[in-house]
């Protein structure tokens, strides 16, 4: 029984991270119908920038203060938001009216550029986050261990998801984002500057992604330049499971995938985890091709 609860805690942690990253995929897809393959790499870039801040300000002694971690998050978020805007401007905007496939190729190219850029700037080797970056506290609740890092990841990702949900559904600009995703020309006729909406999505997504990326680094205490592939792919699958283009769907998909991964890892085999993930994806797409929440409302013509 305690294995089950332990895996639920682990799954919620990883699921929260997947959800944060999946939101970036889904928001861009919602508006541009483009899969931003560079998103996973942006998240990894966030982890590396955060790591640099932690190691350079934390000193060699090894136990950086909590404010250093806060600063690492701020630096990663700012840098990745800028990178997101540059990415949109350089890689996607010139291809806005081109064939869909051109933008996909551009996305793949941007992904490789960022990945190799990280390798050149930092290292081709796995970098380790220093020990004791975060308080080494853990709680034991009836045989289940929850670490400070896990609790932080779960709480912050849930808060961020709730805030994003409220922002998108209950503010004027949030409604404009949803409207632009439905029909760009009709949105323009409402006086919405759709380009500004697109840029905002390339700020919001990467901001959440940078946090997700740094969470990965802090949780697994390591970062390697090509991990955007693994984590990006998982988050992307989460977005599809939830219904790509649908914001609550990405949250749900992320959490579900995290829980499913942890349970499969705990009860079946962790070597089969990836295969099991794809199995879940196939099973869900067979039953609901649009993803769990990706249902389109019947529109009368």
């Amino acid at each position: 029984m305690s294995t089950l609860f332990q895996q639920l805690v682990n799954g919620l942690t990883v699921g929260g991270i997947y959800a944060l990253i999946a939101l970036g995929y889904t928001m861009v897809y919602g508006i541009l119908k483009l899969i931003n393959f560079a998103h996973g790499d942006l998240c990894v870039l966030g982890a590396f920038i955060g790591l640099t801040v932690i190691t350079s300000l934390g000193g060699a002694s090894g136990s950086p203060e909590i404010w250093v971690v806060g600063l690492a998050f701020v630096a990663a978020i700012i840098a990745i938001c800028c990178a997101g805007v540059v990415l949109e401007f350089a890689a996607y905007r010139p291809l806005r009216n081109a064939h869909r496939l051109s933008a996909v190729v551009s996305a793949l190219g941007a992904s490789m550029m960022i990945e190799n850029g990280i390798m050149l700037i930092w290292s081709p080797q796995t970098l380790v986050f220093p020990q004791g970056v975060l308080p080494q506290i853990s709680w034991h609740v009836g045989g289940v261990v929850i670490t400070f890092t896990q609790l932080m990841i779960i709480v912050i990702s849930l808060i961020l998801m709730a805030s994003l949900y409220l922002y998108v559904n209950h503010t004027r600009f949030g409604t404009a984002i949803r409207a632009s995703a439905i029909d760009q020309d009709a949105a323009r006729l409402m006086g919405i500057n759709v380009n500004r909406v697109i840029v905002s999505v390339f700020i919001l997504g990467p901001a959440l992604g940078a946090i997700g990326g740094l969470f990965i680094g802090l949780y697994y205490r390591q970062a390697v330049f090509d991990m955007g592939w693994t984590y990006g792919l998982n988050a992307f699958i989460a977005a599809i499971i939830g219904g790509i283009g649908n914001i609550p769907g990405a949250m749900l998909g992320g959490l579900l995938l995290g829980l499913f991964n942890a349970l499969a890892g705990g009860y079946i085999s962790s070597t089969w985890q990836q295969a099991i993930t794809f199995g879940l994806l196939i099973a869900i797409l067979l039953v609901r091709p649009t993803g769990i929440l990706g249902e389109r409302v019947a529109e009368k013509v």
Partner: protein
Amino acid sequence: MSDLLSVSDLHVSYGQIEALKGVSLRVAEGEVVAILGSNGAGKTTLMRSLSGLLRAKSGSITYDNEELVGRRADLIVRKGIAQSPEGRRVFGTLTVEENLDLGAYTRPISETAGSRAEVYSTFPKLQERRSQLAGTLSGGEQQMLAIGRALMTKPRLLLLDEPSLGLAPLIVKDIFTKLRTIAETGVTILVVEQNARMALKLADRGYVLEVGRMALEDSAANLLASSQVQEAYLGKG
């Protein structure tokens, strides 16, 4: 009366195909003008160009003494030109109320509720359906929503692209009655229609657009009586 909108020698193309081949028209403040034309005449192209969704190749669109060609669509809305587009284009997965509130996007938030109440008093059906998703409305209700949403921008000039499209005759009649009420509040209206009779009954003046060119221009009464229009658009042989 001075012209609120004047279009001269407008050319618009899609790639190699020229959809508008030198269109000119004018609309005075407070006037209701109808543009008739069959499928493919270029009516929607004209409307999309006026709203800045399409960029004209040459010619000019002057509104309130300002050139609009090359202006961004969202800035044109801020100038006071609203459009209810062809096929209504309501945001299907947003509620009726969210659709309306988006119409007030360019205006202070404090004015949204008041404008919404005005639209509801013109179209009480929308108030009944306010928390329903727009995609689940009937065609007529969606058309009302598209017009209401355009009114939320507080336009001086309202562009209507085929408000009768795909609607039952009774509903068309109802919508044109509402348009009359809206025109009486002082909003200038430019309406593009295949339903020539309804449009000419509403309008003061009319134009006939044929394959990218204006073929006729006259008062609405004269156009209704003209044998040319009757044969081509009113189904009288």
